[in-house]
């Protein structure tokens, strides 16, 4: 039981909302569509739901072509960004509506509604009307209605974006557990890289309607196919520095020269893009072959347990993610250290050629 998109494209009035997408989602999998606003996430989900018909390509479900099938006949459910519930029905009736339409016996409906409601902790609210509830409770009602009918495909269109920071965290954890043992296909759209990492399963990177990369979340995270994928899948974006490799050394932006260690020896001479994650840049050398660069503090942003420090010099600027709180005046000089074994290397056409080896070390 899998859902496959075969060369699916959707062009409306000359605008390519989805460009030649080839994806397969297995039963029981939790799939995250990660991309910036207007990257085509919602358009792709609408194609999967059958709300829109693709202008090209086919949609296969369990091998059967369902491209044209109307949405009523597909066993799917969808949760929107703006807490869409029937305002004229109570929470109980809202959750029960798909079952009533499926002509299920009343006792069965009652059992399943109560069970799903308690699963999402909204059982005490069953008699209330959705508009009387808080944002979080309204979204839980919408989720309960989506889950009560055991749809084979459940679509989430950035469902948590209008909720409080802390509530988002809790609902994300609940969602992960809810879908742990379900056999349906879940597809979750988001703009936040952290949400993709937290929800696990597979990640599909979307940019301007095209699929950049798709696969298990850690494979995509650890081996981004190109610089765009690397930047899409990290928050704040991965630092990219121009560099040239010669037989003996590597120079960054014609400015800082470093000996070529055995780690990078495999690279043939030429121009490259070097990527380093903000969390791997340290203020103190961890190993002797770290690349040292002297920079100036542009801004330090503290977020509870971490500090995002923007450092720059005349050639390039970088963001570092440090544990704990570091208070620096803007403009203060600072030395940063880039562990060589944490560098990603992309060739001139921005394709990945080298990923950091997984030996220990790195900034704790």
């Amino acid at each position, binding site marked *: 039981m899998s859902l496959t998109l075969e060369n699916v494209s959707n062009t409306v009035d000359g605008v390519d909302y989805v460009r030649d997408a080839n994806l397969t989602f297995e039963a029981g999998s939790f799939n995250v569509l990660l991309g910036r606003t207007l990257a085509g996430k919602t358009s792709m989900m609408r194609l999967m739901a059958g709300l829109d018909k693709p202008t090209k390509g086919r949609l296969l479900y369990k091998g059967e072509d369902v491209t044209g099938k109307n*949405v009523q006949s597909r066993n799917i459910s969808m949760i929107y960004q703006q807490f869409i519930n029937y305002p004229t029905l109570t929470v109980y009736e809202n959750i029960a509506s798909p079952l009533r339409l499926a002509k299920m016996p009343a006792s069965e409906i009652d059992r399943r509604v109560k069970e799903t409601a308690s699963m999402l902790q909204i059982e005490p609210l069953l008699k209330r009307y959705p508009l009387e509830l808080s944002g979080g409770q309204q979204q839980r009602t919408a989720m309960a209605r989506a889950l009560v009918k055991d749809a084979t495909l459940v679509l989430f269109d950035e469902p948590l974006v209008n909720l409080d920071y802390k509530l988002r965290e809790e609902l994300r954890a609940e969602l992960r557990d809810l879908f742990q043992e379900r056999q349906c296909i879940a597809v979750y759209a988001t703009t936040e890289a952290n949400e993709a990492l937290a929800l696990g399963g597979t990640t599909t990177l979307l940019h301007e309607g095209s699929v950049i990369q798709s696969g298990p979340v850690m494979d995509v995270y650890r081996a981004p196919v190109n610089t765009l994928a690397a930047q899409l899948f990290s928050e704040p974006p991965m630092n990219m520095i121009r560099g040239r490799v010669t037989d003996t050394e590597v120079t960054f932006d014609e400015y800082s020269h470093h000996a070529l260690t055995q780690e990078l020896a495999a690279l043939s001479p030429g121009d490259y893009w070097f990527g380093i994650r903000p969390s791997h840049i340290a203020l103190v050398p961890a190993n002797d072959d770290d690349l040292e660069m002297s920079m100036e503090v542009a801004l330090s942003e503290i977020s509870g347990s971490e500090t995002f420090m923007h450092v720059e010099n005349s050639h390039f600027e970088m963001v570092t993610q440090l544990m704990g709180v570091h208070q620096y005046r803007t403009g203060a000089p600072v030395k940063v250290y880039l562990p060589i074994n944490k560098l990603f290397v992309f060739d001139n056409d921005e394709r990945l050629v080298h990923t950091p080896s997984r030996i220990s070390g790195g900034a704790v």
Partner: protein
Amino acid sequence: MRQTRSKNIGIIIYILLLLTPVYWLLNMSFKTNREILGGLTFWPKNFTLDNYVVIFTDPSWYNGYLNSMAYVSINVVITLLVALPAAYAFSRYKFAGDKHLFFWLLSNRMAPPAVFLLPFFQLYSSIGLFDTYIAVALAHCLFNVPLAVWILEGFMKGVPREYDEMAYIDGYSFPKFFIKVFLPMIRSGIGVTAFFAFMFSWVELLLARTLTSVDAQPIGAIMTRTIGASGIDWGLLAAAGVLTIIPGVLVIWFVRNHVAKGFALGRV
């Protein structure tokens, strides 16, 4: 915007000026014709309900109200039944010629009734509908249906399309969704549209008078015809006038919270 004192005074003055003519009509309706012609008095000296008694007992009078009520209600029902699906189509879909159709409806709302007097007269006589409630109800659709489509479309645009899609996903067929989910969500819009259809049909006289003679004569026609031999019976005329205002005030009370949005054709 805080409600300053000067605004309160201003609005009270305006409302007083606005209601003075109606007060004068009311004042007239409680006087006998003789007292009216006798001289100008601010309060009816000898207060009388005779005028109203006449209206409520004389069939040629009260039939006027019943006839008006009849064709107005038929018109409101027809207008809603026809306008609701059309407004839904305009608010949800782009289709061939939708712009032109919408403009054509608008132009009909603006069509001077006088232009249609003659053709209506002939059309309804030829199909044997002359002097019936249906004739007037259908004629009033000329301006009420376009207005209803416009107001309802404005209200419907306020409901995001995600609600339709969610219902389809849940398994609702279009008709079931439209009646059980969508219409309850725009209850206020339907109420306001019914009020406007009622109002514009109730106040119109030219078409109503031309298409009727005896059986379906509206109250307005009866009033304009009472310029009988013995001159105008002002008291009776005033009483009849007062009674035509009451239905409108009653109906507006029920839709008072949404009527402002309705006035702006749902555009706000």
